[in-house]
């Protein structure tokens, strides 16, 4: 896979949680390849179980296909592939988190969706420079939890395909 590394990282700090009035932020947590990720809860429209997804031929590999969500067509993005991880084993069920970006709905396919966590901003920190470059591209920062880390995914960078070189 020859996905460009030169994607837009800087242009999407908008999702970044600046220190606001409240000390706590809510995140929908999800796991991908046994790693913990989070998306700000207000960005999430729906959480779906296994869905019938229509494949879209000739689409970039990360696009898993399209699905029908209450009469709206939602584009499914396989977050694993987007993050440069291995393809999910076929037998394993997937779940997805539906987000809106630029007026379009996208369904982010992940391994499983967990609970909503309320996290203290003091545990938040910018991406450490040692983070996997691929992850760093799509992450806004990380939270230190008890014994594990939660990577905050940037929805905007995940769905910004304009910077990519055609990998198909």
């Amino acid at each position, binding site marked *: 896979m020859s996905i460009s590394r030169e994607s837009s990282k800087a242009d999407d700090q908008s999702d970044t949680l600046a220190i606001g009035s409240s000390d706590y932020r809510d995140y929908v947590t999800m796991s991908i390849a046994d790693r913990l990720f989070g998306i700000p809860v207000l960005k999430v429209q729906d959480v779906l179980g296994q869905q019938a997804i229509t494949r879209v031929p000739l689409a970039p590999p990360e696009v898993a296909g399209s699905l*029908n969500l209450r009469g709206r*067509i939602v584009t499914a993005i396989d977050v694993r592939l987007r993050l440069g991880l291995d393809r999910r084993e076929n037998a394993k069920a997937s779940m997805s988190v539906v987000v809106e970006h630029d007026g379009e709905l996208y369904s982010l396919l992940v391994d499983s969706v967990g609970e909503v966590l309320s996290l203290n901003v003091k545990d938040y920190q910018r991406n450490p420079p040692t983070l996997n470059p691929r992850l760093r591209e799509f992450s806004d920062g990380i939270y230190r939890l008890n014994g594990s880390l939660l990577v905050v995914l940037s929805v905007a960078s995940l769905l910004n395909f304009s910077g990519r070189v055609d990998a198909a």
Partner: protein
Amino acid sequence: MDDLLSEFLTETFENLAVLDVELVKLEQNPNDMELLGNIFRLVHTVKGTCGFLGLPRLESVAHAGENVLGKVRDGELDVTPEAVSLILECLDRIRSIMGDLEATGSEPQGDDSDLIKRLNAFADGAAAAPPAAPAPAAAPAAPSSGAVVSLQSIRPGKTSEASIYEQIGGMGTIDAMIEVLFNRVMGDLRLKKFFENINIDHLQGRSRDYVAKIAGGPDSFNEADLKAAHARLCGMGFNDAQFDAFAGHVQAALNTLEVPATISAMIMGMVFSTRDEVVGRVAPGEGVTSLQQASAAAAAPVEPVAVNPVAELQQLVESVKTDARTDKQAKPVEAGDSKDSAVANQTIRVNVDLLENLMTMVSELVLTRNQVLQILRQHKDSEFAAPLQRLNHVTSELQEGVMKTRMQPIGNAWSKLPRLIRDLSHELKKKVDLVMIGQETELDRQVLEMIKDPLTHMVRNSADHGLETPEERRRAGKPETGKVTLNAFHEGGHIIIEISDDGRGLSLAKIKSKAVQNGLASEAELESMTDQQIQQFIFKAGFSTAAKVTSVSGRGVGMDVVKTNIEKIGGTVEMRSTEGKGTTFVIKIPLTLAIVSALIVECSGERFAIPQISVVELVRATSNGELKVEKIKDTPVLRLRNRLLPLVSLRELLRLDSSETTMNEDTFIVVAQVGTYSFGIMVDRVFDTEEIVVKPVAPILRDIEMFSGNTILGDGSVIMILDPNGIAAHSGQMGMGDSAAAENMSKRSRSVSEEVVPLLLFKAGDGAPKAVPLALVARLEELDRATIENSNDRWFVQYRGQLMPLVPMDAYQQISTEPGRQPVLVFSDREHSMGLMVDNIVDIVETRLNVEISAATPGRIGSAVIAGHATEIIDTGYYLSQAFGDWFGSREEDTAGRGRRLLLVDDSAFFRHLLAPQLSAAGFQVTSVDSPDRALALCEQGETFDIIVSDIEMPGMTGFEFCETVKKAGPWQGTPIIALSSHANPKEVAKGRQAGFDDYVAKYDRDGLVHTLNETLSEIRGAA
């Protein structure tokens, strides 16, 4: 805002839009009286309506404008650009006042006296010239003014009448009075003769002006008219009975307007007081003086009737005014529009939002219906079946009906353009001609709204940046007047709008330097780009090559915005430009954003929708049936009714899993058509058709040109909608105005005019590979050698119930007698077929033909380099004549070509050699030349022909120009010309007809050509 006012605004805005267009037309045809009358009426209506609604500012502006128009109509003023500009300015002022009115609900403060003064001065400036108003035109003004003569005569006694005009509600009220009266009078047989040969509009205007004047309103009345009218009346003998009849109408008019009895009695008294003078008992010879004296005298009998006439009059005026306000419904019917009212009653105005809602609901209804039908299919014997069928039909009809309400002709979006171009041409000192074709093309309202602004912008750009100044054009050898052409037409469920100009075109050098300057590309990058790619830079933000920003263009809105807006509605913009020749933009937009009918197919377990509109037929191919898919090297083809249909495998095209059998024995073929190009799409299964709601695909998928959208089916699943245009473009054919295809095209050949021909390559005999244009081959056959029979040194085979002659490639070629299969190319013509025996078929290639002629071997046109090998192009005509001595002879009786002289103009030696034998075989005496110049030289030498067949794309003079030249003048003017082109799409055909071609034939359509020739010639014979 009350309903009345908003209705007025809508109506008046519409009227203003029409006026803009009509005025520009008038400027071009100053003598079109009908047009002028129409304009006058429209302005008049605007003015009248303003009066009724009590909008003095609007009314006074409109009235001043109407004055000028009135003078123009009466021939006192000429239609000059100044006059038109002034009227347009007046309309603009009305529009701007109305804009405020719309925003605030009341007329804005402001002073229009300057504009009114100029309008009046303009009107007067010419009015000072000898009054040209024809006498009869004003004639029956007298009866109506009879009443007002008296009115005027009582004025001197009082002082406060000046306010009457304003109290009355201004011109509007007077109009109503006059119009009611005229409607009645005109319908009276007794009075009819006085109106014969008279311009009623003019008369009405005069009468109104007169009443306005004596009521203290604007004085635009011409005394001479009154005199003339009186003279005419006296001359024609206006008698007592007629006077009574007229008076009766005045009374009735007053009644209609519900004037209180006392006041109307008083008015009638005034009218009767003028009896003597009007019926000519006062000596006619005394003319005006007698009239004025009489009117003065008439004042006397009035006095006793009403003690305070002015007070009463004002009361009357009040009552008329309230009447006019409250009884708005009755008024338009009463006052003149009676002939339109029937139509008006057939239409209602509906809020657009309501329609949009309806549309959404219907879309949902359709989807729900689809779902229900899907369920029904699983329960065959349901008792719901019948009612559901009914529901199905009603839903379809409802959907159709609602769709129709949303369709509007594209001309609506263009209505502002003539005015725009006119103003532009004045401002920029350019001569611009706007040609609009296909105004009636209908498209969805929603789409129409969205392209309005981009279109306006592009037309403005074309006129401003595209066209040169007259001097520049003269220097470039072009006509001074530049042309901007708008052309709209339907194609395959899309609307194509072309905006072209014949201006300077895009300057590549300028674009390059600008691109470098803006950091969009480096010099090196530009070097590697094609001209097409460089031109695309103008769609980038902040890119304008105009050296100076005029007030017209360069308002910070660039082509990038245009492009974004069009893409928003699923459309595309393409651009072609030739420096020095002009620029053409092609906008392709979907007809509607709503529902289409589509065929659902399956391939590799995935379902797809193909828009029904581009599907021609469905064919099932089996391995052992009549129809089967054959492969010529790697290219699958289907023999379908004597044609070889190129096939596209959806599986390969979409790179679907081919884990199943690689080549299915049974396959369904969807025959699709894009423009004139037909091709088959191979799929695994075909389901039924379904109504689908087209939804645009997500931005990330938008680059995939195979899909035009996606949709949700009745069962709730999402499927992709295939775009036949995209597939055609991808399969190597030039899709209409498609960017990828255009790029493909420019990669393959820099010059589009060179033709790409699909050729069938084969081997036969010794030596080089051979080639023949694929279009000439009817079928490919492999015959069992055992079935080949020899008789009289010729080979035959029984084929489809007939004896088909087989011809070897070379006479000395040994026909193999070993058992096996013999590949044969079948050429077919009507009931005759002939087989050319070859060794093996190699491939189908698409290439440009560059034939170097070698006449050495019979049966060869020449050699060309194809796929890297020197290849001989065979002359099918030669083999046809070998197979049948009478190949064409048997048809001689039904050809009109016998002995007819035919001129063939084609730059390609290949086609000349291909066509000439065929045409001469059809009985024509063929003369072929390689360029229009040669053809014109023959014309000068005095040669004559019965018919000319000309290619379109030729270097130097094109076929269009050639045709125009020939048809313009000279001895060949009457000679029919038939165009021959490989791009026979509807647009080209239309262009050809415009240039004067009598017919248009696709290049390989031999039968079609002979048929057209015969038809054209017999038409001429029939006409002669």
